[in-house]
């Protein structure tokens, strides 16, 4: 036993090493590799990492692709046919024939009124008894009455304007002549011709996924080291702050990139979202977005040093803003001016717009460059503060 103890202390003494280290110090690749290795092993073994990095994104993407839809299709309305005139019947048929409406026919408005109140219908159209005489009247008179459920304003608007459209179309078709309006609009939607919200939501959802991995996961894993006291042990070794931080972030950077690729594959092959730009541009954008995302996570955990607090702050400062203020779900142009100003501070804003461009439009570098620059600068800002907050000791 005695011999073995002496063995531990043979070879280069720590004093010689201390002298050498002081001369050559600072960055050491071997230590960085050791830290990265350790972090990767931990990440792979921790079921919550796999959950956050792979299961959560899939769930989110499916939610945004299928459950959340900003499109209106098959809206349930009632059509009350009070008149027996053939013209009235043909208008009712026109309502029933459109694919955007699902019609419940009725003879009495009381039948459908209750259904609107109970929320089973979104509104109803009344074709009145005197429909024929209104139609024949030389002075233009309102032909039908449209009643909608104002508690869902978007749908209500849609029902009202669509009902009007149906009536106009029907009128045009009946007379066989040009419609009364002198100019006919024929809208064409670029980039998303079918106006399917899935196509813009799925790329946006990738930004959310990256925020979760970059900010939430990083904040948690760094705070965990403080909580469990392992940070104290690592700080007491010769490893430098830079090595510790890079060692911590590298695996999550790679994890974030893998998750991007996986989400992209899902988007293209499962959800039918086109990738019109290049994969290179997509990866470059994602990589640059990870700088502020990781930096923010690092900063949060460096300040809180507590997993619970870190996850709360990450939720409120990372996840929610990128959800609400990035233009992913809600259009930034429609926000009050002062909130619009705030969105400029949210890195996800730049990433969402870049993602939508790269998926739906193509490689538009004029859009990418300013976005890349903005993301990188916010990221560098976070890193500088995080580095200042993480010192090679336990002073707070």
């Amino acid at each position: 036993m005695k011999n073995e103890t002496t063995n531990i202390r043979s070879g280069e003494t720590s004093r010689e090493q201390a002298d050498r280290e002081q001369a050559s110090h600072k960055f050491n690749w071997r230590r960085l590799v050791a830290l990265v290795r350790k972090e990767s092993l931990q990440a792979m073994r921790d079921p919550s990492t796999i959950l956050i990095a792979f299961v959560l994104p899939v769930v989110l993407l499916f939610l945004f692709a299928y459950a959340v839809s900003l499109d209106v299709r098959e809206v349930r309305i009632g059509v009350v046919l009070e008149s027996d005139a053939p013209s009235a019947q043909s208008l009712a048929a026109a309502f029933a024939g459109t694919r955007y409406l699902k019609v419940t026919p009725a003879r009495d408005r009381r039948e459908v009124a209750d259904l609107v109140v109970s929320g089973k219908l979104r509104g109803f159209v009344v074709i009145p008894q005197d429909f024929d005489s209104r139609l024949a009247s030389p002075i233009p008179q309102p032909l039908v009455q449209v009643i909608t459920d104002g508690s869902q304003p978007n749908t209500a608007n849609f029902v009202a304007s669509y009902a009007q459209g149906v009536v106009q179309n029907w009128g045009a078709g009946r007379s066989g002549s040009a419609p009364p309006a002198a100019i006919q609009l024929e809208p064409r939607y670029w980039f998303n011709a079918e106006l399917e919200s899935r196509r813009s939501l799925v790329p946006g959802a990738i930004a959310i996924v990256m925020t979760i991995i970059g900010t939430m996961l990083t904040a948690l894993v760094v705070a965990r080291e403080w909580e469990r006291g392992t940070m104290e042990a690592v700080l007491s070794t010769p490893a430098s702050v830079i090595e510790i931080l890079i060692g911590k972030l590298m695996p999550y950077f790679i994890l974030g990139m893998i998750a991007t690729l996986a989400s992209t594959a899902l988007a293209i092959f499962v959800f039918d979202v086109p990738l019109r730009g290049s994969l290179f541009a997509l990866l470059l954008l994602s990589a640059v977005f990870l700088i502020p995302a990781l930096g923010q996570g690092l900063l949060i955990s460096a300040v809180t040093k507590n997993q619970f607090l870190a996850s709360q702050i990450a939720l409120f400062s990372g996840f929610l803003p990128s959800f609400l203020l990035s233009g992913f779900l809600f259009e930034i142009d429609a926000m009050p001016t002062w909130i619009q100003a705030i969105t400029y501070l949210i890195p996800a804003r730049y990433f969402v717009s870049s993602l939508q461009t790269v998926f739906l439009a193509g490689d538009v570098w004029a859009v990418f460059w300013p976005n890349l620059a903005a993301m990188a600068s916010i990221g560098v800002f976070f890193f500088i503060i995080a580095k200042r907050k993480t010192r090679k000791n336990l002073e707070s």
Partner: protein
Amino acid sequence: MSAHTAIDTPRERGKDAVAVVIENVAKHFGEVQALRGFSAEIRYGRLTGLVGPDGTGKTTLMRIMTGLLVPDGGSVTLAGFDVVNDNDAIHIVSGYMPQRFGLYEDLSVMENMRLYAQLRGMNVDDIFESLLDFTRLGPFTKRLAGKLSGGMKQKLGLACALMAKPEVLLLDEPSVGVDPVSRQDLWRMVQELTDDGMAVVWSTAYLDEAERCESVLLLNEGKLEFDGPPQELTDRLKERSFRLTGVSDERRAVLSRVLNLGTVGDGVIQGDAVRVVLRKDAGREEIDALADEVGAKVEPVQPRFEDAFIDLLGGGPGGTSALAERMDEVKLDSDIAVSCRDLTKRFGDFTATDNVSFEVRRGEIFGLLGPNGAGKSTTFKMLCGLLKPTEGEAHVVGLDLRRATGAAKSQLGYMAQKFSLYGLLTVKQNLEFSAGVYGLEGAIKRERIDEMIGTFDLKQYLTTSPDSLPLGFKQRLALACSLMHHPPVLFLDEPTSGVDPITRREFWTHINGLARKGVTVMVTTHFMDEAEYCDRVALMYRAKLIALDTPDALKRDSRSDKHPDPTMENAFIHLVESVDMENEERTDAKAAT
């Protein structure tokens, strides 16, 4: 920077060369003064104990020595390097094991060792074999650190701290959460390291550990109370420590009277006897007279480090419990207050408590002891109705805990670990809350609360938060909350962990007083000397009850040539080792057939 060249390298240097110089070091955190400016030296080739109750600045000093904290005043030099200016060098010449060992629980033993080796720039393969041999962790290299026992974690932590072949090894509370058997192993390892010239600093709140160190820095409230070999301190108490024997049935009453004597500074119960420490320059006339009166024998004994510590702080509290004075005598229909039969608890395929049976008499202080993970907390929780047993039954004052959980719970008081007070409520509100949960109302409620405030002297603190109370008052408040409904049975879960010896003595004065009034007290503890306060001690190991007897009988049974006068800790180690031996024989026998 240049200072270190003057100091010799470890092998050339003499055994007693100075390793760490602490000069007037001070440190505060906000308003709290953690270190109040003192100087000391730590030498190579020695085990130096950094001893003191919790919260006295031990960890702060440790962290300053490893360069993790910057002192506000004064300086510290370790192996010739200044901890602030030569920070990088400090991390190389020192090995540091923080509390909870600093291990990655989801990495294996080998992966933890490899990480720390690489962080310290060591060649992995050269040193692993010797370290694994040294720590006897060889068979467990593939196991995750989180799955190791407390003792093995500690050894792994030590191996990681030793990785750099440090000149100074700093161990922060290495024995917390580690059973006495593993502690024994650690002492052996540290002994070998110091023999080889390393300076080892061992911080601990267990005062009995101080006696095993070659040199001791004794801290109390950020001040250095003593610096030197522990014998030097205990020698001051020569001919002042006595044991009163032959008082077994009356020992609590005797202790209470002894502590109220002006010439007595400190006293504790030790099995069947009462241990007494006289004040400085006091004669033994008073205790002799008392001994004559109660028919006890007075014999001189070896002073202990804890005696010296209490003496240094001016003695312990008096022997009368104002609380017990006001309690009514507890009367029960049956003489058995708590009982359990074939109590078993399984979590999945893990058995935490295996077939445990015992009975506790009215007015008995019953101790439940065991290493971490032995199942004592699980057993305890089943007995006070917090966990449902998988099999078997438990009764409190004749009430079946399975069927009449609510009624049984109203008959017991429970004081959880770490006091479990509400930091966001005031002291008064905490009292009101616990009176409320125990169903007290109206005049009775007010009366009881006033009684507790008066008894425990809490008046000055009524509107403050329990978090800002001094430790002793915090403990009083927790005890007051659990006794609000005057329960006949009191459960105490590790009531004195993290509490200084003086506060512990005050606490036991109350408990002794309550027991004399017929309150049955169930207590778990990891302070071996506290087990001596108990009438009987149940020892749990690996989910089973391996021994149940009076402290004196347990000690007597473990008497051997090596330990002619065994302590509670010796008895514990002896019992656990004999169980391990039996198990090994059984597996050997199985392997043979």
